């Protein structure tokens, strides 16, 4: 069954770019949900059937790290895999994201091939 994806980024352009590259990567997916920050993302996760989350790190209100931390504490949604999509390349921040349960990371700007390589196995 096709997977539903949630894209979390404060830039709507970036969300469009990501959803476009998902399509270009030839990955099959169901619905695409969007959220502008961690708080919105939590609300979507609580109300919709989401299989995979792609999230930015640097966002206003609730950033990607806080989002992971908050999500880990909510039983109903804590097992949904999250991939970080970010400009941050520092091992520290990616390491922190992973220690909080992030399933992987994609560095901006990325190519459809890279998307396929990282997300393909899950789709």
């Amino acid at each position, binding site marked *: 069954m096709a997977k539903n994806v949630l894209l979390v980024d404060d830039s709507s352009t970036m969300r469009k770019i990501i959803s476009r590259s998902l399509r*270009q990567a030839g990955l099959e997916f169901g619905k695409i949900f969007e959220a502008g920050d961690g708080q919105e993302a939590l609300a979507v996760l609580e109300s919709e059937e989401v299989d995979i989350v792609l999230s930015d790190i640097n966002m206003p209100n609730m950033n990607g790290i806080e989002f992971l931390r908050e999500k880990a504490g909510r039983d109903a949604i804590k097992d949904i895999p999250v991939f970080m999509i970010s400009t941050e390349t520092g091992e*520290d921040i990616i390491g922190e994201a992973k220690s909080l349960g992030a399933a992987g990371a994609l560095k901006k700007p990325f190519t459809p091939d890279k998307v396929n390589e990282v997300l393909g196995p899950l789709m």
Partner: protein
Amino acid sequence: MVMDLREEQRLLRGFLKELFEMIREVEPFTLALAEDPERIEIEERVVKGCYRLFHSIKGTGGYFKLDQLVYLAEAYDYVLDMVRSSIIPLEPIQIKLLADGCRFIREHLSSIWEEQGDAALKTEARALSTAILQTVSSSGAQQAALQPPSQTATRLEVHCGLFEEIGELLELAEQEFVLWDYIALDHDRVTELCRVIDRLQRNFSLIESSDLERLTQVMGATLNRFLGGAFFQGEYPERSFIRAIDAIRTTMECSPGSGLTALKEMDSHLVALQGLIRQPIGEMLVQAGLVPTQTVEEALVRQRDPQQQPPRRLGEMLVEMGEVSKEEIEQLLENQHRQQLHRKELNQELAVQDGRPAAGKGEPFLTTDLRLDQESSQRLCSLVDQLMKMHQDQGSVPEPLLELNRLCAPLRNATMQNLIPRLKRFVHDRTVAAGKKIYFTVQGVRSELKSELVLALYQPLLELLANSIEHGLEEPEERAAAGKNSKGRLSLLFLLKGEELWVSVEDDGRGLDLDTISRLAGERKMVSQQQLGEMTSRERAALILEDGLSTVDDQRGQAGRGLGMARLAEQLEPLAATIDVLSRPDKGTRVTLRIPQAKFGV
């Protein structure tokens, strides 16, 4: 990325609109702050807004091939990131450049749209990048004028890379010096250490830090002389090196992005290092211009001649050869002696300045505070979290709290990898203090362990290591008498075992005194005699985890075994860890903490 043209145009338009919105939001504050840098109440807003703007450009600009904007954004992002991480304060010149940057982008949004690109912005974008980088880089304004703009990107990349590498090299060197007793015997390892110091020197030269370059050069030269067969004068030469490393770190922290800040107490460090190895008399004579190198070599050949009876010192030989006078030699030796004394005094002064007792056997000497009180730091983080949540619920978070929250980040981010050097230093320190010789190894470190777990483990590990050092492992003489290697072995091992993480601290010391433990437990009615009779040695060993059982009567050390172990059990409660104690008389003790998967979350 392949996009159809109309879609790409639509996306670009959306992106430029977003940038416009971000600038519209932050620019008035930036201008206000540029006009009056004292208005610190809006600084956070400016930094946050600008960071968001440039960070977005850095992340998204690449999709639209806006190379000039991305280039500019990388420089701004680099500087703002340091400000955000409190590495540097925000300077008025930077505020002005932030305002310039916002204006520059805002003014060119429409031209970017018209041209569908930003190639025309190259000159201005590069000039702004150079300017903002200059505020944190080591080169002065003059050099900026001379520097072709195309070099700035390389400069930025090179600088970032260099600083990262310097950090790694310093850590590597520090660890080797902490283990100096063991590596000093290993020629290859000291050679490798020389290479590390060499690379540090080269990097400092590249970032144009003359002080740090000179200091590392002297460190390298001293080590090289040691490799060449010279001996260190006095005990603990590694202390001078470790202090120099600490000083380098402090200097770099004071001037991030550059190495121009003068190193505090530079001369003292140089004298301390240079004084580690007594200069051979021949070298001193050559340096003083009293004899040519050739003559010294000639004298050395004569000195080694087996016919030479009785054996002479080099100085005596040269006097005999009529090359120098006895007085001249005495004068040189006198100078050297004075320098040694001077070095000692300086070391004492440095030690006092660092707020610790002067160097000497058994005194702690490391400048870095080793104790990370796990309870307080966790409590601190949790209080800050609570406050943040309270304020977030009310809709606004006050600036001081935001700052406090940022300052807590390192506590939250603690990882095993960066605690290991601390543990090694702790072991080294305690070993010296206890007058023992210990070979300490750490194996199987899992860097992906939860930071909460790392923090929770830190104090218990210190207790366990201290117990082994102070009570488990014997004095070198006692070990030798028992037919053991005079160096005790102490190891810390991390192991994933099915659903559990096993953390073991093991020593090959005297083992627990099970008879005394059983007797005390019986006397104190902790267990009945019948129970004792039925207990295995493992169960009896585990009695030391019970409250109120101390087998150390004189309580001389800092680690009272009974007390420490009871506290350990308490500290480990939140981790739901089981503690397994295995001890064999004269063979050693192993304490294994078994932590369930739910708590360590790899």
